């Protein structure tokens, strides 16, 4: 059985509830499901505050990422995708052409996940060399830690608060690929 067949077998177990057509037609005649009505009302009440929070978080995240990128690359062809992720072409310090995708969106940040920067080069070796990530504070969007080479045992990284360099840390990569962040001696 191929991977596709396995996947389809598993997800074909998902079924919508059976009353769709009748309910959809009732909605068309002005009868809106109570759950949707409550959702619409709640969304309307909270739209302003939530929108402001999301914009603030999103902006802080990408501001932190921009600082990280600006230190390392010459950026061109910046593009914002429909899902909120960002992409651009860049040239590294050695003159290599690379493609960068900032692989995160608002929902990932508010879920508390780290934002990830994916960098691909013209070939597999270059792509591996430029594997990067940025760990983002889920509350205010500030950059907590970043790492630019997965094969190095440790690397000094920087932390930004509100766009200003705040601390320097050493990230140590342990054999099972988990990371420990400890303050560098001179900070």
């Amino acid at each position, binding site marked *: 059985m191929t*991977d*596709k067949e*396995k*996947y*389809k*077998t*598993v*997800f*074909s*177990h*998902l*079924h*919508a*509830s059976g009353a*769709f*057509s009748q*309910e*959809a*037609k009732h*909605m*068309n005649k002005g009868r809106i*499901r109570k*759950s*949707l009505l*409550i*959702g619409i009302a*709640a*969304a309307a009440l*909270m*739209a302003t505050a*939530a929108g402001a929070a*999301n914009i603030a978080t999103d902006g802080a995240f990408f501001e932190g990422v921009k600082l990280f990128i600006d230190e390392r690359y010459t950026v061109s062809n910046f*593009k914002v*995708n*429909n*899902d909120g*992720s960002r*992409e651009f072409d860049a040239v590294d310090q050695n003159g290599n052409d690379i*493609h960068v*995708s900032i*692989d*995160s*969106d*608002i*929902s*990932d940040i508010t879920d508390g*996940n780290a934002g990830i920067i*994916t960098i*691909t080069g013209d070939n597999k070796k270059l792509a591996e060399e430029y594997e990067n990530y940025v760990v983002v504070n889920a509350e205010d969007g500030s950059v907590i830690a970043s790492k630019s080479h997965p094969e190095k045992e440790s690397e000094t990284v920087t932390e930004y608060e509100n766009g200003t360099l705040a601390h320097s840390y050493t990230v140590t990569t342990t054999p099972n690929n988990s990371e420990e962040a400890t303050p560098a001696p001179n900070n």
Partner: protein
Amino acid sequence: MDEAQFEDIVRQYRDNLFAIAFQYTKNAADADDMVQISLLKCFKNKKPFDSPQHLRHWLIRVTINECKRYLVSPWKRYAMPLDAYAETLGFESPEQSALFSAVMALPKKYRVPVHLYYYEDYSVKEVAEILGLRETTVQTRLLRARQKLKQTLEEWNDD
């Protein structure tokens, strides 16, 4: 569109749309709502569709847009825990259950391209078009998703 045509569309597409919406919402009640809103839009739609493929593509795009709107909304329904919901799906083997859990544990940005590619049989180019991403981004996300799934399932096998 008459009611008979609409019934056919509902019968043909609701489970596929539900599976896509579930990748976003991770709960059945909200996924049902997303599909219902999409079907209502289809029912109200005045423009004819060129082909069944056009209709399918349109329904998937509308469902995804509704799901994105849902995700930025402050309103979230109480959801049955995913493990409990998985037990109601009647998987035939622990392997099927493990694959379901592993996919649902992926970040959304990986789950959705994986689902469109593996379940809906869209090409990388088509997935990129539907999600408004570059092809290289979709390829990267599929690659990362496969790596994560492989690792998760290997750990599951070791246990």
